[in-house]
């Protein structure tokens, strides 16, 4: 048995990405387990208050691999979340490290109400 041969062509399965969502007054943090992906294969979009995530996990071995136990398949992780419009999308940060994507969405800080001084006689 050998692992040489043409690249794997088996189709990907689509799976809902497991995520953690943590909120504070300052920001919303979304963390997704996406093992085996890469920065180039992850797509995050915001559209009308909805965050959409799509990450591809490519094949890790060749088509001719002699598997004894197989629990992984080429996967496309997807997730869609309605998060609203209260975030500063220009300040969103995204970091992919050790197979975990972390998104930080800062909350737009509402301007404090200002008292208008009234002058008069």
């Amino acid at each position, binding site marked *: *048995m*050998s*692992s040489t041969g043409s690249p794997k062509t088996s189709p990907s*399965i689509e*799976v*809902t*990405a*497991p*995520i*953690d*969502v*943590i*909120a*504070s*007054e300052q920001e919303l*943090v979304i*963390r*997704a*387990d*996406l*093992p*085996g*992906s*890469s920065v180039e294969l992850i797509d995050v979009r915001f559209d009308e208050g909805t965050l959409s995530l799509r990450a591809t996990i490519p094949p*890790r*071995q060749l088509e001719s*691999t*002699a*598997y*004894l*136990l*197989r*629990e*992984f*398949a080429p996967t496309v992780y997807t997730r869609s979340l309605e998060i609203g419009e209260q975030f500063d999308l220009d300040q969103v940060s995204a970091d*992919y490290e*050790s*197979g*975990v994507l972390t998104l930080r969405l800062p909350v737009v800080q509402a301007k404090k109400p200002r008292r208008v001084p009234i002058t008069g006689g």
Partner: protein
Amino acid sequence: MPLRDLLTKSPKEEPSESAVKKLKGEMERIFDRIVDEGVHLHDSFFGSTGEWLPAVDVSETVEEVIVIAELPGVDPATLDVTIQGQTLAIAGEKKPRVLASEEKVHETGCRYGCFIRRVTLPVDVDDSKTDATFANGVLTLHIAKVVTNPGKRIDIQAASAPFPGDDPLASTSC
């Protein structure tokens, strides 16, 4: 929350909506793998312990056994990989982020906690010839197989003279 935490709740205690959603997600993941890949459940779910079980692939070539484990968010420096006989064990912990007092959790779909994943290797391996890499939350182990001695062929010399009583003209068959 591990699946077993859901199963050990008393009948009167209703699981939360997020726990049910998580259980549904886990079941979908398991069935996806069964349908698409023909997963061997007995290998996947027994003989391993912990709060979660990393998914693994095990394959082999002529020279080596290859084990690939999904470990997103696990610090590779904390991993403990051991080989004893034909059993490989991958142990570690995925630590959850410590929350600040003002932070509120809205959803927890990622898995955390300690794990031990054991895999039975198909042959004896040479644990001194193991290569381990960790990239993007995936651990890849290349473990050399023990090279077995194929045995030495012994040449048989023909006797210089026939045995007494042998007919040198008789044909042989086998």
